[in-house]
């Protein structure tokens, strides 16, 4: 079975002669859950855009489900950070989730199956009772969950979450982790996070991005408590020098 994500020898630079990502080799297998970490400006967002075919690599190849990203991305549920979206756009939570049912080949109007799938996604994240609420009236955490529901409504094989915990209050965070663990049983979940505590939560691998990309097995990376993460970074220097430049900087963010 082809890996879900396969980057081979990928270089990317926004300006000629200045590489944002260099010599990236990365494979993610089906069912593998991972966490993408790295400092700001290290290339996390660029890596996501390459994966989704929104940017073309300067060199090398990107494959999603063994396909070019433009085709493979229809099997991806992508969740952006909610604050990048228009706050005052006239749209209800349910309508937002319905846009996840959009597809290049589907008919122009949503059918009953689409509405049911959208409602199911809202139920799954515990937001069904707020379906008819306006998106702009929701709290930050609620909006973020609606965007997860939208990604789920795509019925994806790969769920790609960009900073899902950045704006969630601590109480909601616990529920969110529980939801994620649930989802990991059904699909491949990749999370981009600044939150190193996140790394400890039952992921299979940690993908460190700082111009270069290094993937670790989470077993080598995990720590019992959040504050232990710091020490782990120190120990990581000893056994893997290359990791320091990636993960070591992430703790400052």
């Amino acid at each position, binding site marked *: 079975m082809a890996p879900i994500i396969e980057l081979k020898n990928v270089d990317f630079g926004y300006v000629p002669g200045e590489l944002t990502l260099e010599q990236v080799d990365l494979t993610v297998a089906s069912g593998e859950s991972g966490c993408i970490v790295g400092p700001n400006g290290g290339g996390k967002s660029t890596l996501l855009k390459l994966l989704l075919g929104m940017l073309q690599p300067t060199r090398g190849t990107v494959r999603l489900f063994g396909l070019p990203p433009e085709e493979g991305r229809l099997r991806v549920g992508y969740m*952006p950070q909610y604050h990048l979206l228009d706050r*005052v756009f*006239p749209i*209800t939570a349910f*309508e937002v989730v319905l*846009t996840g049912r959009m597809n290049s*080949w589907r008919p122009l*109007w949503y059918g009953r199956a689409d509405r049911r799938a959208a409602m199911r996604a809202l139920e799954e994240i515990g937001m069904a009772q707020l379906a008819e609420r*306006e998106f702009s009236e929701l709290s930050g955490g609620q909006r973020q969950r609606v965007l997860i529901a939208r990604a789920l409504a795509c019925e994806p094989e790969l769920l790609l979450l960009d900073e899902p915990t950045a704006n969630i209050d601590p109480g909601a965070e616990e529920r969110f982790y529980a939801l994620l663990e649930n989802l990991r049983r059904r699909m491949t979940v990749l999370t981009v996070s600044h939150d190193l505590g996140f790394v400890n939560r039952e992921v299979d691998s940690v993908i460190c991005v700082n111009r270069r990309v290094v993937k670790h097995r989470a077993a080598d990376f995990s720590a019992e408590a959040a504050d232990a993460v710091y020490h782990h970074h120190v120990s990581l220097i000893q056994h893997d020098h290359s990791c320091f430049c990636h993960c070591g900087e992430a703790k400052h963010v």
Partner: protein
Amino acid sequence: MFEWWHELWMPELSFLRYALLLGILSAPVLGVIGTTVVTRRISSLAGASAHAALGGVGLALYLQRVWMWRFFSPELGAVLGALIAALVVGIVSLSASEREDTVIGVVWALGMALGLLFLDRTPGYVDWQGYLFGNILLLSSTELYLTLALDAAVLLPLGLFYNRLLAVSFDATFAQLRGVRATAIYLAVLALTALTIVLLMNVVGIILVIAMITLPAATSGFFARHLWSMMALSGILSAVFMVGGLLLSYFCRVPSGPAIVVLAGVVYLLAMTVRRKRRS
């Protein structure tokens, strides 16, 4: 008491009736295009397009009178100017290689300056103020047919692509990932916006047209929960503003363009004070 009603039907007031009808018939276009412009935050792009229309008007009058190109009407010139400006700014903003607001400012001023240069070199009397501030005396039944055609050109695709327009307007990146052709939709919106601008040029003028596109939509945005209801309400509001402003202008003997825009602006400000939406 109903004298004004009879006065409206006097034969010499046909231009006023055209203007009133145009105000009502253009409601669908203004509702849809205005809402799209406001929610996608391209009102300054629309402003640049409107001002560039004057460049086209100037070119057309010059060609008509100096080169005797009779077919090249000011309206045709305005369509060309507005379309080219909207597409230039739109394509530049898509490629994101230049600062968008700078490009908008350049196109805005350049279009206007070119228009004034052409008008200066055009022999004979030119009512350039009419293009800038509106002149409903120029209206004829042709404008009404064009309005109906533009209604169809906006409503038919909307009926088919509403869900795609909604997805793209709310989150263009996500919609693109789902296979929606965001760029094509964006360029279609720009082209229809340019046509709407020219349609309203004779009623409110190039300078004020941007207000007529954005104010009804922005007012209705305070109250609407859905994109479609924002479009519907803003269409109704635009008809109310046009008809109200025109009647005001005729019976108070003030210019029509400013009367319409002042009415729309006052209602917008009132709506802002009673707005229902929380906006922090």
